[in-house]
């Protein structure tokens, strides 16, 4: 009897396997389980013709077969139904463009300013937000540039009246910091500065600077070099060489011009560095004793260093921008590149 049952089972499975779609599945059900003419139903009817002692075993086997068929039919029906539902769900074309959400563009100068301010905070500096309309005293006098000092020539200045002007550099931080803090001082200021230079590709009457002051006991020119190196590497995100050569700024002595190895040709010589391998990047030096004294710092106890750098110039170098005016036109085609 087992062999006979197995045979039925196999036949049923074959039918199931051949059924495609819900309709054919229904036919399989009808073929095997229909009240009238179903194979299993028909076999059950044979129960009556069997000898009494065989009936329970046969009945049990047939019930098992029917249950099995029903479970299998349901299983397959669910699977087929799911497949058909999936098929009928609309397929989207994922290659079409998404909704045009867009972030605004960061201004390269603001981005650099934020980066630089964070570098200095991490190095223990206090960031000063200082006035752009400034007293002559803070911009010139207290930085050892009295009236009729020829160094003022290099900084043609916008005036409001005899004593009020637009700051020509952020070096005003030196005086403000020394007036408001006692050593040890680590101060920095970033922002707009102004000079009466007509617009061209490399000049603008308004540009941006960052100026630094460190005053403490025992500060040396070696310290200036050390901190400059740390700073420049962080700003340019690259290994670079740096060199200092004598330079003149009335508020420092000794004074230095600072060059970095050309970031385009890595020092081998190109158009940007005029074949020299070096790019002038900032001015620096040891704070002039007169500047310390004028702001009430005892120059026999304390020394310090200072430097000032054009942020626009760094952006020009870093991103290869060919015209400073682009920074202030706010052309979206320009801004969206940063």
């Amino acid at each position, binding site marked *: 009897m087992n062999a006979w049952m197995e045979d039925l089972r196999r036949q049923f499975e074959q039918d199931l396997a051949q059924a495609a779609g819900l309709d054919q599945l229904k036919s399989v059900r009808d073929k095997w389980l229909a009240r009238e003419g179903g194979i299993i139903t028909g076999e059950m009817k044979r129960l009556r013709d069997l000898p009494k002692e065989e009936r329970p075993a046969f009945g049990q086997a047939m019930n098992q077969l029917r249950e099995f068929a029903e479970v299998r039919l349901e299983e397959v029906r669910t699977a087929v139904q799911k497949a058909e539902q999936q098929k009928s769900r609309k397929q989207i074309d994922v290659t079409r463009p998404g909704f045009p959400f*867009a972030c605004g563009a960061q201004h390269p100068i603001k981005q650099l300013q934020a980066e630089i301010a964070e570098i200095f905070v991490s190095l223990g500096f206090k960031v000063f937000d200082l006035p*752009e309309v400034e007293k002559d005293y803070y911009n010139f006098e207290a930085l050892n540039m009295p009236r009729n000092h*020829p160094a003022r020539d290099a900084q043609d200045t916008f005036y409001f009246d005899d004593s009020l002007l637009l700051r020509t550099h952020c070096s005003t931080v030196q005086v403000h910091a020394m007036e408001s803090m006692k050593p040890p001082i680590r101060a920095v200021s970033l922002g707009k500065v102004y000079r009466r230079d007509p617009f061209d590709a490399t000049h603008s009457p308004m540009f941006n600077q960052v100026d630094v002051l460190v005053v*403490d006991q025992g500060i040396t020119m070696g310290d200036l070099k050390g901190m400059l190196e740390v700073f420049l590497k962080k700003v340019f995100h690259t290994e670079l060489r740096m060199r200092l050569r004598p330079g003149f700024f009335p508020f420092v002595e000794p004074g230095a011009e600072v060059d970095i190895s050309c970031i385009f040709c890595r020092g081998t010589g190109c158009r940007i560095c005029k074949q020299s391998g070096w790019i002038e990047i900032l001015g620096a030096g040891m704070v002039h004793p007169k500047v310390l004294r004028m702001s009430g710092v005892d120059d026999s106890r304390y020394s310090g260093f200072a430097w000032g750098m054009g942020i626009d110039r760094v952006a020009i170098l870093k991103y290869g921008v060919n015209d400073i005016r682009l920074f202030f036109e706010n052309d979206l085609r320009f801004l969206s590149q940063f």
Partner: protein
Amino acid sequence: MKISIEWLQQYVELPENLAKLREDLTMAGLVVEAVTGAPDAPVFELEITSNRPDCLSYLGLAREIGAMYAKRVKSGRAAKALHVADLSIPYSIEIRDPDLCPRYVGLVLDGIRVGPSPQWMQRRLEASGMRAVNNIVDITNYVLLECGHPLHAFDFDRLRGGKIIAARARSGQKMVTLDGVERELDGEMLLINDGSGPVAIAGVMGGQDSEISTATKRVFLECAYFQPASIRRTSKKLGLSTEASYRFERGADWNGPPAAIARTCRLMQQLAHGRVAGSLQDVYPVPINPVEIELSCKHAENLLGVNLKSAFIQSTLKRLNFRPVRKGKGKWLVECPTYRADMELEADLIEEIARFHGYQNIPTTVPAGTTVGEPSSLYPYERSVRAILLGLGYSESINLSFANEQENRCFPLPEGQALQIRNPLTEDTQFMRGWLVPGLMRAAKHNFNHNQRSVRLFEVGKVFRRGEDGAVVERNSLGILGTGSLSPPNWLGASGDYDFFHLKGMIVGLLSGLRCAPAEIEPILQISWLDEATSAALMIGGRRVGVLGRLDPDLEEELKLKQAVYVAEIDFQELYPHLFSAVRFEPLPRFPSVERDISFVVSKEFSYHSLRQGILELKIAELAALDLIDVYEGGQIPAGRVSMTLRLTFMDREGTLTVDRVQGFSDNIRSSLRDQFGAENR
């Protein structure tokens, strides 16, 4: 300054390799910006900083190079003293203002024949960037370039009364200078006068009347030392800068005139048939002492962070013609050369030591000590504003801080508050900006002109005004601009143009992102540059902190914008104290909320704000939110009325709301709207 290598070689031996010389000069602080001239006649273009007027000459540069390479400087021909024979012409020199003219040396030459100077001299002058004129003028220029001391040659026969008087001008006095310009003088300018009037503006430019001409027979030579700041002031005030004033204002050598005049005299004898005819007069009432500075090796070491040998310090100073006198171990009293106008303090000497030690040989160290870094007080707020606005699709801009006449007129400040620049560069820099909006508009217009009509910009920057007491008030401001289509063309069908409610919604979103104290947008406002029908004030705590709205359509037309532009300007300093209010956690509700929508038609006389206030005044504690979700006008809605749908959200923190209670609340609201505002249910 242009330096001909051929000429320079007359005074000092140069290295074979000019590239090395260029590099060494640059590293010594004398930057060679370019090498020009023919290959066989190279010219160095040097940038001489304003502290080193002593290097503005061939001899000065030769001294520096001599010190660099330990070579002797051949200055003999320039330095020889002058012996004067024929003194037949009497004249006098008087200094009335020795504070402005400490020293004046004069000499008269007779028998002069004015003509062209020799070729070699012309070539050298031209290689150095000067034009040849005639032998007399060329010789004075030649000596100026050679030893760095300016001289002036007068036609002696045009000087009246045989007198030279150095004295301050009378205020308002006038004279015509060599360049043919009549100049008005003031009482602080030093003049050189003859017996009857001015013949030169001292140290700046000679007068036209006594100019050397082809007819000149007798020459009066002037070689003086003038006070630097006075020359600078005169030159600046007259807007007249010359080779002479450039050197005098930076500081000439007060001991330079005798040698310079001797050299000039000799050249005029050789090249212009000159013969000394009037005594060499050196008027020098109060001799100026050389500068003496104390120097300590320890101080130099401490400032530079290097170890130095006394012998090195001493030899360096001597090479540079300083005279160090030992005052104990590692200490000197140093007498400075009188041509080093930059020497004043010990630090100046230390720089000389550092230059010759080599900046590159100073070891790199890290400053000791620790301090705690601190960002500027506004920075955290600015950073958040920036992050939010960038996320909302607004690009950050930096606009010029200036305003022109038109902007000043179209975006007026209260009477007397506009901050005017006394010496503007162009008409675009006449004023400091009082608002950020005009700059944003300019940027928007720039973008329109380049076919970008959908623009969102913001700026955080300073605006400037004159306060009531005349002092300048500088404030941080936040400007925002939006215009054009809401999103780029897209197949998803989202479209439409930016309007007031996008601007307002963005500002409300920004404030919420900044955890701002409750803010209100109120309609009452009189800002001339905003459209009266579409403008509002941003109020926080009863104070106006900003304005927003559509730009005045007349202004849009005047500025040829051709599309509606929405702008906001928020006083950042008023705003930031209200930001990042303290957080107090409120437990999340444990019971579900229930929503009810109510629709009604109401007269447009009532603002949404007043309807909302009317509902809030019912003080239904369970009303958790109130949102306007639909507005409809026209169609079956009578004119002057508007249909609105409000979504009411109710919630009870203590338990689940029953249908009856919710119905009660919304009935209460409906009847209140009906009674207070005549709203009809729909």
